[in-house]
């Protein structure tokens, strides 16, 4: 089957600083659950941001969903197919209520209001979060915010999930619940996590990012 992502020889440096990525290559096949490991500041989040075009590489090529992506316009489609869950759910949940937040993605994809609400309700019920439907996003607990953020990404029916530290601020029960949900999803994913136990149970492949280069761990 065709690769979802195929990155070749990526180079990237934040202005005025040492390069973070120094010829990084990565492939992601359907069904794979890839864990990115690396020290703080090794460039794991930067790599995810390059995948969806929030940063642009200074060298190398990004092929996503069968096409090479260069311009901002190319990445709009990538973002709609790759669900990115940010490190801090407060960055992601910006609508007043949970339902509105989850419907935000489908509405952007052109769904009608009724369809968007239907999708949102379906996702909420799949994740057993229906009771939060009309909750106010800023009054949710940390764990609830995390799960709602996941729901808001899943509502876009992405082909790939990009998860940046998904277990941050989760207690053990919520962490187990998140793991169970993720293991039950058909999507390929790339997960950044410092939580070794979580990573080992979820990932099918591990890559270590060190000195700007990815190696099988």
């Amino acid at each position: 089957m065709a690769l979802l992502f195929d990155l070749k020889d990526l180079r990237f440096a934040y202005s005025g600083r040492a390069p973070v990525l120094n010829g990084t290559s990565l492939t992601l096949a359907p069904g794979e659950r890839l864990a990115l490991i690396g020290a703080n500041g090794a460039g794991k989040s930067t790599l995810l941001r390059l995948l969806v075009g929030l940063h642009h590489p200074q060298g190398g090529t990004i092929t996503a969903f069968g096409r090479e992506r260069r311009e901002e316009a190319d990445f709009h489609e990538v973002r709609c197919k790759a669900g990115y869950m940010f490190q801090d759910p407060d960055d992601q949940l910006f609508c007043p209520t949970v339902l509105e937040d989850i419907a935000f993605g489908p509405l952007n994809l052109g769904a009608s209001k009724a369809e968007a609400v239907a999708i949102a309700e379906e996702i909420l019920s799949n994740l057993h979060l229906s009771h939060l439907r009309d909750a106010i996003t800023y009054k949710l607990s940390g764990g609830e915010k995390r799960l709602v953020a996941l729901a808001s990404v899943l509502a876009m029916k992405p082909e790939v999930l990009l998860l940046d530290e998904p277990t941050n601020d989760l207690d053990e029960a919520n962490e187990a619940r998140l793991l169970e949900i993720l293991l039950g999803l058909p999507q390929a994913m790339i997960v950044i996590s410092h939580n070794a136990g979580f990573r080992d149970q979820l990932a099918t492949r591990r890559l270590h990012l060190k000195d700007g280069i990815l190696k099988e761990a």
Partner: protein
Amino acid sequence: MGHLAGSERATLNTATAESRLLQRLDPRTRVICVLVFAVCVVALSSPLALAVALAVPATLMLVQGLPIGKTLRRMAAMDGFIIFMLVLLPFTTAGPAAFTLFGFDASTTGIWKAVEIGLTANAIILMVLVLVGTLEPGQLGHALARLRAPETLVHLMLFTVRYISVLQEEYTRLRAAMKMRGFTPKNTLHTYRSFGYLVGMLLVRAVDRSERILDAMKCRGFDGRLYLLDDLRYSKADFTFALVFSGALVVLIGLEVFSGSAV
């Protein structure tokens, strides 16, 4: 909007208020009524009409069973801004002296002017608190959007509502961390510098966060347009309320015309 950050409920609603009349009204009706009321009250000048104008929102407040103390405290907060102007007005307006304080004459004209301004401001602010203050901030944003308020302003309001508590938390965390390291505010350069750092850090973090939020929105296909989910509909309750409300306004105008010619 500082009250939004508190852990207490942001709106003036009480839990039992759901079934009350105001809850059945379309948010747009409330916003429009407040606007019309404000325009009307600003045009009034007779103290009698203004006193009755103040009684309208006060009655609504009582009928709706809003927390009286809390509502009036918020109204008083607004008075804090105009109190000096009101107190100084009698002494700065020319006219026949009513009394003399420390050699300064307080004019009757000035006193009436101060009463007029005080009543006008309080009547309007109380109406805002009763009709709009009982809305969830999100509802207000939607109502404004549906009333064709500029989209940028609506977005600004919705994002402020959403993130003011996050900023408040960030402030509280930083402030707590300062305390844990033995910081107590004194009248020293160190104190001012530290508060400067604190405010600076909050600003920097707010900018960073706003960029991350935009990134997160882009990742979900955001293209500059926010779609609103709810369909607002006017109901029979809205018409009834608008009718009664208009009746009250007519009475106010009548009082103004009548007492205007009598005084």
